[in-house]
């Protein structure tokens, strides 16, 4: 199981698997272990999955966080897929899940997760990062820590610099 980077750059062993979307016609068969399944299938099979601590969801970058509605905190892990590191939709999804929908539990970045994007993910509410396996996980802490502050309010701070300056 690949390791997961946390917000402070520390590394944690992980036992979640990402279950990809089944081919058309096939049904979803989560393995017998902690699994992240496509969010729309979780919603469609809500009766089956509700309350199960070993099931989380993942969003693809075109999917809308709003679809989870007030069920959001029933999940202990939500992942957002970055199909390509240049696809920035996941940042908006992260902020919406946290700031608009009040999601409290683990928010994980999966997919094409590279070192130089971690800083943005962190500011947009992601607190766990499944770094692409060919990247040097030992460098994550450094890349998360280049900046000691930012100009804007985001998920990590509700005080933009212009308000801090006034203080």
């Amino acid at each position, binding site marked *: 199981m690949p390791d997961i980077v946390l917000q402070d750059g520390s590394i944690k062993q992980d036992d979640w698997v990402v279950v990809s979307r089944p081919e058309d016609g096939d049904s979803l068969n989560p393995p017998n272990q902690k699994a992240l399944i496509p969010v729309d299938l979780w919603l469609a099979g809500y009766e089956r999955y509700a309350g199960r601590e070993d099931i989380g969801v993942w969003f693809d970058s075109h999917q809308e966080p709003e679809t989870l509605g007030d069920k959001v905190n029933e999940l202990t892990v939500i992942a957002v897929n970055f199909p390509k590191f240049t696809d*920035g939709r996941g940042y908006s999804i992260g902020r919406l899940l946290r700031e608009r929908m009040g999601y409290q539990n683990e928010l994980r970045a999966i997919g094409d997760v590279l070192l130089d994007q971690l800083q943005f993910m962190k500011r947009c509410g992601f607190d766990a990062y499944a770094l692409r396996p060919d990247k040097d996980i030992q460098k994550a802490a450094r890349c998360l820590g280049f*900046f*000691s502050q930012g100009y804007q309010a985001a998920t990590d701070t509700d005080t933009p610099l212009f308000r801090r300056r006034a203080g």
Partner: protein
Amino acid sequence: MYVYDEHDRQIAAERVAQFRDQTDRALAGELAEEEFLPLRLQNGLYVQRLAPMLRIAVPYGMMRSNQVRRLARISRDYDKGYAHFTTRQNVQLNWPNLEDVPDILAELAEVEMHANQTSGNCIRNTTTDQFAGVQEDEITDPRPYCEIIRQWSTFHPEFAFLPRKFKVAVNASEKTDRAAIQVHDIGLQIVRNESGELGFRVHVGGGLGRTPMVAPVIREFLPELDLLTYMEAVLRVYNRYGRRDNKFKARIKILVKALTPEGFAEKVEAEWAHIKDSPTKLTREAIDRIKGYFTEPDYESLENASDLLARQRFENRAFDQWLTHNVDTHKKTGYAIVNLTIKETGTPPGDVTDRQMEQIADLADEYSFGEIRVTHQQNVVLADVRQDRLFELWQAIVPMGFGTANLNTLTDVICCPGGDYCALANAKSIPVAEAIQRRFDDLDYLYDLGNIDLNISGCMNACGHHHVGNIGVLGVDKKGEEFYQISLGGSSHHDASIGKILGPSFAREAMPDVISTIINVYVDKRTEEETFLDTYRRIGIDPFKERVYA
């Protein structure tokens, strides 16, 4: 002018360290070329036909003399001793070494400069009117808002990987638009509502490139304090719904068109309703604090030097012409706005040598409180010159090559680097500009023709803004040969419009003749008062077509 505080300095220093680390990893092979690409682009670093090109940000076109001197030094130490002023008020170096870029950035940071977000699919440098703060008819100084936007957009974590690049421009003048806001992704026109409150008319979805579009208004009045929350809503809608499947359909203009301006505005309003009162909402105090940096310099109380200037004009015809064309009215009596033209025939428009940059810095110190502005027409402005020193200044600049009295005339060309420097070019552009400048070298004739915007791009990326030139020239490739297509009737001002294509394209040698023919049609058909654009709008394209293709 804005001065960094300890926060800005810290962020700038941290950025240099970060880019150094990224460059090291790229050189060590830990970052694939496609992974390094957006990182270096967000730092203004292109890799070009001949060498990398580094685009340095000049926020809203303003620089202090020490910054210009630093650019001169950098261009000498790390480059071939010249730099290029761009149409987005930035500065480009054409030949730096990749390995040197972190050192260049460190040198820039020492004088509060950077190359952040000057390229890449992110929010770019905000531009504005080069006469901001010194012109008579402006509603309020736009620069504090540009600085507020600069800070908000710098390393914005949500908007670092947009579908495509994103450009914002602000205009504050009621009568003119020197910032071309209607061909930007967001164009902000500063206005007052009926109750006299300050705010913005918001245009979204303009742009040039392959699909030129004039930006529709999506909000008639946005109160001042709501600037950032509303922009955040626009950007979020774009980030979520802008097309990512096709690079040529990824600009926000395509989304606005697909949803219709009304549909797009609705989506933005719905998003905005959630974040309108979030901590990102500006405070009066925050705005006033930034405004405090854009106070007036220590003007002396002077009378207008009308008699002196009249005498000097009478005695010297060349000075008279220069005063008429290259000097503008200042809001303060006794002062004037001076445009230095960087358009000598035979040199690429906007190119300056290290020595010239130092001369410009010296002139700014001597005549204009040490401040310089870069214009979107690739010229340089000294904004605060005493009228009684204009003659002296003029005598100084003519030998330097900054005194060509052709501002806004046909030979004050906007031109991209084209095939001489750019890997994407279909055709060269600089030699076309040069040939036209040589053909029209009689100043009196140019003055008689009045204001004409001639804009040249070497390919449809439109770096030379050809669509909004009154006369636009576009380089095209015909079976491996360089040809040029002409469009007429574009404008980037308040009456913004996209030019119409005249017809089949021409070989380079034919261009001066073709332009002459077009000008002759105008001269024959114009009424006393009409500019080229007026005549074109009245008579349409056919008379031009008939004569050119006769």
